[in-house]
């Protein structure tokens, strides 16, 4: 993935917001209210603002996971399955050991969720190294299978029969991450997200491992010629990418939902790709990029609550980001402008 100028990405963000306005004008009977709620909704009160920031937390983790894979020139399209598997593992650990003290339980649940998802992602890396199986397609297909298996676990063996929700039983309250901004769901998971953002940046930019991984991502044959063991930088980046996704799932469970609900992490995996692209795979820029995507989603949500548009408008805006962020149109426009004087 080559680096594109920042100005292009700012325009991408602008165009994706404009596309939202265009779709609202096309579909809504009360377009002015819908546009107003879309843009100002997330800032209307503490509740909306806190929830918006909170919904950026899973995107920070998935965005970091995708960034590290992109840095190694690997496509991990299995994010949806990995975050879901991480979440259900974290719940299973909390339900299996209901009596641990809070800190130990939280750590165990998060680590177990991360490792499960990491191993799941690592399969794609192993298949690529061993038999040259295309990792983009294999990660997507494995995740497709895992989504259904997790659905089965949530609605079958782990289902709470006393509740009509398609969900597991709630976890014990000593495992909850503390809330920061009641009545919203914002919790200390945010700090974990920021911590991992810094940690990933440290790993990628300052360690020998990160340096060799970036060289391998730039050109595998060059790296191999320089004596780097290239297969290492296929398998471990996949594991770390999956680990971060799983961690995101675990944080969503312990911080926000306190149980696993069928399909509750849907979209966070794809969102991670948009975040990584907007952040140009820089782990530190992942945080603002995740906030922007969370803002799109929250805006669409409030517009849906008060007017007649659906929240899928955020999905469409996200697709616009995908389309434009790697295309050269922004770059060309800016280059032309610079040439004129």
């Amino acid at each position, binding site marked *: *993935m080559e680096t594109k100028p920042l100005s292009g990405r700012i325009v991408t963000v602008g165009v994706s917001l404009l596309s939202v306005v265009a*779709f609202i004008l096309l*579909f809504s009977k009360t377009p002015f209210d819908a546009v107003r709620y879309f843009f100002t909704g997330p800032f209307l009160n503490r509740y909306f603002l806190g929830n918006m920031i909170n919904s950026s937390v899973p995107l920070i983790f998935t965005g970091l996971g995708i960034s590290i894979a992109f840095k190694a020139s690997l*496509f991990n*399209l299995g994010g949806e399955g990995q975050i879901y598997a991480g979440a259900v593992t974290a719940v299973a650990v909390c339900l299996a050991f209901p009596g641990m003290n809070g800190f130990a339980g939280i750590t165990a649940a998060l680590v177990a969720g991360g490792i499960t998802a990491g191993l799941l992602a690592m399969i794609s890396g192993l*298949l690529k190294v061993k*038999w*040259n*199986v*295309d990792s*983009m*397609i*294999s990660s*997507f*297909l*494995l995740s*497709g*299978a*895992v*989504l*259904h*298996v997790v*659905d*089965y676990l949530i*609605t*079958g063996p782990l289902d709470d029969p006393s509740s009509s929700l398609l969900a597991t039983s709630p976890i014990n309250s000593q495992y909850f991450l503390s809330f920061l901004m009641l009545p919203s769901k914002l919790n200390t998971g945010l700090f974990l997200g920021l911590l991992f953002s810094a940690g990933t940046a440290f790993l990628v930019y300052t360690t020998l491992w990160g340096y060799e991984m970036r060289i391998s991502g730039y050109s595998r044959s060059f790296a191999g010629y320089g004596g780097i063991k290239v297969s290492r930088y296929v398998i471990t980046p996949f594991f770390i990418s999956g680990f971060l996704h799983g961690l995101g799932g675990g944080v969503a469970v312990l911080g926000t939902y306190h149980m696993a609900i069928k399909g509750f992490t849907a979209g966070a995996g*794809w969102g991670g*790709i948009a975040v990584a*692209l907007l952040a140009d795979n820089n782990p530190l820029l992942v945080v603002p990029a995740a906030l922007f995507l969370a803002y799109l989603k929250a805006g669409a949500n409030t517009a849906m609550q008060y007017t007649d*548009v*659906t929240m*899928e*408008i*955020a*999905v*469409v805006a*996200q*697709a*616009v980001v*995908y*389309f*434009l*962020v*790697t*295309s*050269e*149109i922004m770059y060309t426009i800016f280059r032309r402008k610079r040439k004129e004087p």
Partner: protein
Amino acid sequence: MKVIHDAVSIMTPFLLAAAGGLLTELSGTLTIALEGFMLIGAFSGVVFAHIIGSTSAGIIAGALASMIFALLYGGITYYLKANIFIAGLAANLLASGLTAMLSFSFFGTKGVIHFSDVEGLRAFHVPLLGEYSFMVYISWAVLLLIWFILNKTPLGMRIRGTGFDSETIRSIGLKPELYRLLSVLIAGFTCGLAGSMLSLSVSSFVPDMTAGRGWIALVVIYLGNRTIAGVLAASFVFGLSISLSNYAQGIVTIPSDFILAFPYILTVSAMIIYSIWQGRKKGVKE
């Protein structure tokens, strides 16, 4: 016999999508947007059949809508030079979001929309072959047509030439982008047919009803060794295994989620076997 009959019906959407996708692969830019093209075809197919009042018109509208969508994708990919994988993801995501939005605006629901006035796909009995929905026969005609285009026309030669070495094509004054765009448009057409077959056979649109078929079609292209005959054989193997698993479902009870997971597991296993086989072949050559 019933198993084989079902297999032929089940394989048809895969076959159509993979045949169109094969052209994009041969032009050197395999598109992962087949899933999105199919979903647009599924939605437009059943909705236009309802509006116009004719199932055949619905199929044509589905194919056209999917081609327009493919034009958008192809334009952005080949002329604005977006990364083909990212643009493909965008197309899939856009198809999913757009169909949900349109269905909410026009029919007031994001769930299943059933059109009781839309007549399902008619079946025809052909001696020796048996009784199949007419889309099955159309898919065979499309397959023959694509084989003909690829092997017997200058257009097919140029598409393959673009995939082989696009700079040579450019040096003789032709535009590789154009041939890539044309192959994506044909893929839009075949995926539109595949999608409208899915929705019209049940007279309904179900959100994200393509359920990974576009992705599996990508694997079918590889397993078919990038030839039309191979794609046909690989689709049949897929159709047969899914049909067998449906049949097994009648005998032993398996949770429905596992049945849904089965095509993905099958596809991954097939990919692994294919890659090992390819690796062996290369090993012998060297």
